[in-house]
């Protein structure tokens, strides 16, 4: 098997919420509540889930934009979860991020050339002509032209802006890119352009992606393995084909059946989930999915199921497969 690039062990992130007079009584939003996974070199791990499930927070912890409350992140075997700031900066060469909103994540006062060159400036890896040359290279790599370097972000369309964001992320030859909903803000005809670009870059540069999205079809298309999150936990993680062909967790089954299929001949039987996602500040006892689960048993109401390997390479956190 390929080499492990990053390993997350039992990551937790609790955000404090002040309550009561003078904010003395503290409670916590458990945004991420015990997440473990690993990403291998050159692979794409997809992370899917609905809003509030903690997938973006997980991405930000991996990037060390947030410090985990508990748990460990190993990058190339080294624990990075408690690194001091000056060492973090070195690490950021290897870990880069692409954001959802290409309108908000590019500085409107900088030219595209300056935006892409900024990581090179910050990390002092290239200066003068060399830097300009690298910017040209990057622009061409993502399918833009070198004359675009002197323009401003507002002159570009959404898809082109996302290409700029990708070029910036690639500037320092990273090994892992955390892409948080990179195509969600784009029109469908543009989405496929950006997805294809990301796949080409992966092949060419041997990148690993942590691809975070709510769109199950997009995640299926781009990922090698997929993790499904619900209320701060991974409920199921497996090779893509295993997960989509044979989802084990009742939540994954419901999620997959809820996706509308672009084929009018298929009127599929749908598992309609009752109710809404509970609040992460007050998650249900036991398995957090049990109030909406049709296979709920007594044990589910009291005991949190562990993520266990129910079939080779196929992990599920559900008492049905205990």
């Amino acid at each position: 098997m390929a080499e492990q690039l990053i390993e997350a062990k039992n990551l937790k992130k609790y955000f404090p919420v002040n309550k009561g007079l003078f904010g003395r009584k503290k409670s916590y939003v458990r945004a991420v509540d015990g997440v473990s996974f690993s990403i291998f070199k050159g692979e794409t791990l997809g992370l899917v889930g609905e809003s509030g499930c903690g997938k973006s927070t997980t991405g930000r912890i991996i990037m060390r934009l947030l410090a985990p409350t508990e748990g460990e992140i190993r990058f190339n075997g080294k624990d990075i979860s408690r690194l001091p700031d000056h060492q973090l900066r070195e690490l950021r060469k290897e870990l880069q991020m692409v954001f959802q909103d290409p309108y908000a994540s590019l500085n409107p006062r900088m030219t595209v050339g300056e935006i892409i060159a900024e990581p090179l400036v910050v990390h002092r890896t290239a200066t003068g002509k060399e830097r300009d040359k690298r910017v040209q290279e990057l622009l061409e790599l993502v399918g833009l032209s070198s004359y675009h370097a002197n323009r401003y972000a507002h002159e570009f369309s959404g898809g082109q802006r996302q290409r700029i964001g990708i070029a910036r992320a690639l500037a320092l030859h990273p090994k892992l890119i955390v892409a948080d909903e990179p195509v969600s803000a784009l029109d469908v005809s543009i989405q496929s352009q950006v997805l294809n670009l990301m796949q080409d870059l992966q092949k060419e540069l041997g990148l690993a992606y942590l691809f975070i999205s709510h769109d199950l079809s997009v995640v299926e298309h781009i990922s090698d393995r997929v993790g499904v999150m619900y209320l701060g936990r991974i409920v199921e993680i497996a090779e893509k084909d295993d997960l989509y062909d044979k989802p084990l967790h009742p939540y994954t089954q419901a999620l997959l059946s809820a996706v509308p299929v672009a084929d009018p001949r298929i009127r599929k039987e749908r598992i309609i989930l009752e109710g809404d996602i509970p609040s992460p500040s007050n998650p249900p006892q036991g398995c957090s999915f049990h109030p909406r689960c049709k296979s709920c048993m007594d044990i589910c109401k009291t005991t949190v199921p562990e993520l266990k390997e129910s079939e080779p390479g196929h992990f599920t956190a559900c008492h049905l497969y205990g």
Partner: protein
Amino acid sequence: MDNKLLEIENLKTYFFTDSGRVPAVNGVDLFIREGETLGIVGESGCGKSVTSLSVMRLLAHTPGRVVDGSIRFAGMDLLSLPESKMREIRGNEIAMIFQEPMTSLNPVYKIGDQIGEAVRLHLKYDKKKARERVIQMLKLVGIPRAEEIVDEYPHQLSGGMRQRIMIAMAMSCEPKLLIADEPTTALDVTIQAQILDLMRKLKEERGTAIMLITHDLGVVAEMCDRVVVMYAGKVVEEADVFDIFENPKHPYTQGLLHSIPKLRRKTERLQSIPGNVPTPGNMPSGCKFAPRCSHAMDVCREQEPDLLQIASGHRCRCFLYQNDLAKEA
């Protein structure tokens, strides 16, 4: 079932801005039969939302104006109606639900008062009767604890619940036509499934016609009887839902269908449409899709094709099929 409830002909809605005239809707023709669900598909800026706002005559507070065309609804010419008459139709015979349920509900009024307003205005119910009607509607759209929710405020509800409130409000006067502009785009998939299920049920029970505006082809396939594909302010293709998905004719429709990843269809590489959607201020001459079209011919860059019938119930705006017609004729 061939009664046309809504018929739009050559609708042109332009926005008059400081930087000039922007033709957002530039000659739209479409119709909706009674009890039918029509899907309007297209990417951002294609004019699908402006079309619906034109029908509702909700452009008064924007720089937009309908400059040409006609909109006929149940025998009435909506564009020439006085505003007072239009107010009787809006919310009563044609109702609308929007993408963002939070911004479409008034945060300082209770749920019951907001839904009740339409009922009291249009159905002339008194306060008590209106409240009963509201509770009945809330139950219909599957809201638990309806008797309590009536007295709550929108912020106390989740996104899916708010969208149910919007649907309850829209359906409370039993409209003949429901315009739903991206009704599930802001919702999670499991909640989307609930809302689509509800809309389908309401349509079957009450025979409401639905104009469903969306960019999600999956939603179209599941909900619609007929589909209109828009590009750059015009209808480029119109057909029943099976023809659109199985026998798409316009290169744009084909490109759109090929560029979406589909569950369990192992596609190595997605096809994509090169280039970008043209901005309204920067329209190409001739066919608006020609610069991105792999079949573009010389004629496409010079002339604009018409929306012509190519088969029964199937219309397409493309020269590829018009030569065939010319040969036959």
